[in-house]
């Protein structure tokens, strides 16, 4: 009788498909995964400790570096948290600009998701096409904030710059070309039978498990749970826009891809509405230069980032620096289900599962 033995294979932290510094210790039986242990911390920068030694406005650029693929979203969450503490009302125009930027970030992040999924499955060309289109969003960011990737554009009380004149035509032309881009991804990536065969029925997460493990964002909606913070707990001015929540049914990798593909279209819908209603006016509320929230005030504020529920919990002690700042990072919590959904699947599937859970290590390791 043939004797077999389990062995351990280390996927990462130096591995082409681990999206940064993820380390998965996989216990394997041949090509099958018996168990996997996720090791984090390769991108740990102790952001929460840094926050305690920075003033409230000074911490803004650090939040951009959490989820660097959609850098407007964590910044938005932080600024809104501090505004909630101070009771600052943000000018209308700034709110609209924030929504536009946040949704463009979401599209950029999802585009990179589709592209990196394609390259993780071996289709290099898909990545390049997604990058090509994402570049146009980066140009929009550069136009407004001056930075492409890590914009640190939001400020406590508003945004740092007004939209330039060139922004709206460029944004409209992007929206105009958007259906063509989606069509191309549908043809090259989503419609491909090899890719479908590799994603369908793989990494299945049912709804109860997902909630139990605190999975949020597109990953939760792929399980068929209609839960989006923009809808259930609207922040900013999200209650003014009409958009649908794309839902999956099975919660497998394929659903996670489809939900994100459809979410991009919904984001475009929100941007269209916001651009139409964009009012004139101030872009920044009057905020004192030295921000000192009341002693003992504490706020938990959450937004729907492109990865899920991004929450900030800030405790103030009356000084100009936060006493305690905690980031509830969606990638961190979402990654917890990786061992559960990949159990019993193949080595190639865990790569696809990592890709479809869409973790950003800058955020999960903080």
């Amino acid at each position: 009788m043939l004797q077999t033995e389990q062995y351990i294979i280390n996927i990462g932290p130096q591995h082409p498909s681990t999206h940064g510094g993820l380390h998965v210790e996989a216990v394997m039986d041949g090509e099958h995964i018996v168990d996997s242990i996720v090791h984090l911390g390769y991108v740990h920068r102790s952001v929460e400790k840094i926050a305690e030694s920075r003033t409230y406005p000074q911490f803004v650029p650090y939040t951009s570096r959490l989820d660097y693929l959609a850098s407007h979203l964590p910044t938005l969450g932080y600024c809104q948290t501090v505004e909630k503490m101070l009771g600052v009302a943000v000018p209308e125009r700034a709110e609209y600009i924030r929504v536009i930027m946040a949704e463009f970030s979401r599209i950029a992040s999802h585009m990179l998701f589709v592209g990196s999924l394609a390259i993780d499955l071996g289709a290099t060309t898909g990545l390049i096409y997604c990058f090509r289109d994402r570049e146009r969003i980066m140009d929009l960011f550069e136009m407004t904030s001056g930075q492409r990737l890590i914009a640190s554009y939001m400020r406590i009380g508003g945004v740092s710059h007004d939209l330039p004149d060139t922004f709206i035509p460029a944004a409209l032309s992007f929206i105009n070309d958007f259906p063509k881009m989606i069509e191309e991804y549908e043809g090259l990536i989503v419609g491909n039978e090899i890719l479908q065969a590799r994603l369908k029925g793989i990494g299945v997460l049912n709804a109860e498990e997902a909630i139990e493990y605190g999975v949020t964002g597109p990953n939760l909606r792929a399980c068929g749970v209609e839960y989006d913070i923009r809808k259930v707990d609207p922040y900013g001015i999200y209650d003014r826009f009409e958009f649908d929540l794309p839902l999956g049914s099975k919660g497998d990798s394929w659903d996670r891809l489809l939900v994100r593909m459809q979410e991009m279209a919904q984001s475009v819908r929100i941007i269209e509405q916001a651009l139409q209603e964009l009012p004139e006016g101030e872009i920044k509320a009057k905020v004192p230069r030295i921000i000192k929230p009341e002693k003992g005030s504490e706020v938990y504020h959450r937004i729907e980032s492109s990865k899920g529920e991004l929450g900030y919990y800030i405790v103030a002690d009356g000084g100009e620096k936060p006493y305690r700042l905690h980031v509830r990072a969606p990638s961190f919590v979402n990654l917890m289900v990786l061992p559960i959904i990949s159990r019993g699947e193949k080595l190639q599937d865990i790569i696809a599962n990592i890709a479809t859970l869409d973790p950003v290590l800058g955020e999960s390791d903080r």
Partner: protein
Amino acid sequence: MKGKGLLEGLWITLRHLFEREITIQYPEQMPYLQERFRGCLQFDYKKCIVCGLCTKACPNNVLSYESQPVPNSKKKLLLSYTIDLQYCMFCNLCVEACPTGTLYFNHDFELSEYQRDDIKIVYEIPRSAQAVISEPADSPIEMVDSSAEPAPQPDEDEAKKQKQINAMITALKKNPVKAVSKLVESEAQAQILADILQADEKKLVRMATMMIEDREKAGKVALAFVNKELKDRQQEGGAGNEPE
């Protein structure tokens, strides 16, 4: 039908095979940068009022400066200004904090250096400029609490200007090349301009006045001077090998 998606993908890649490329050939062809692009952080010492707001705004202690108090005044004299770019996050907070527009980002994004120390940008404030500042009376540089001071009277203004011009004349006489280096583009041009001004006292005074009153005009005149001199030299068959 199975395989239709495969063919569709093949058709898409085939179509792109014959399309024009979308990349740019970087070192030869520079990328198009938006107006607000944040490249390298720059410091314009002439505008600095040594208020220290930038260092307070910076999250990462990138900025630091040395100053010394001016006697009998609340004002401070800037000695040097350091931007330690290796810690810079390009977050724009210092630029937003600066009340006079002293700090700004230019479009230079090629910031790599071979040595760690070279990343640091140190602005030693030129002695000529310091000479201007260290005039005992009102200095042209605005000070920390300038907004609190009453607006200067017109004749006072005139006197102040004359003082500035005098200071500039001194500076031009002492170290002409450095003083005019901001007016022209290259060092060679500055050298020529300095020579001209050294030779002709009248021109020197005129130039100093213009530099205080209207910088742009001064720059134009300076360029005209240099070009004329170059032409003259060429006609003499002499140094025709000047740049440009």
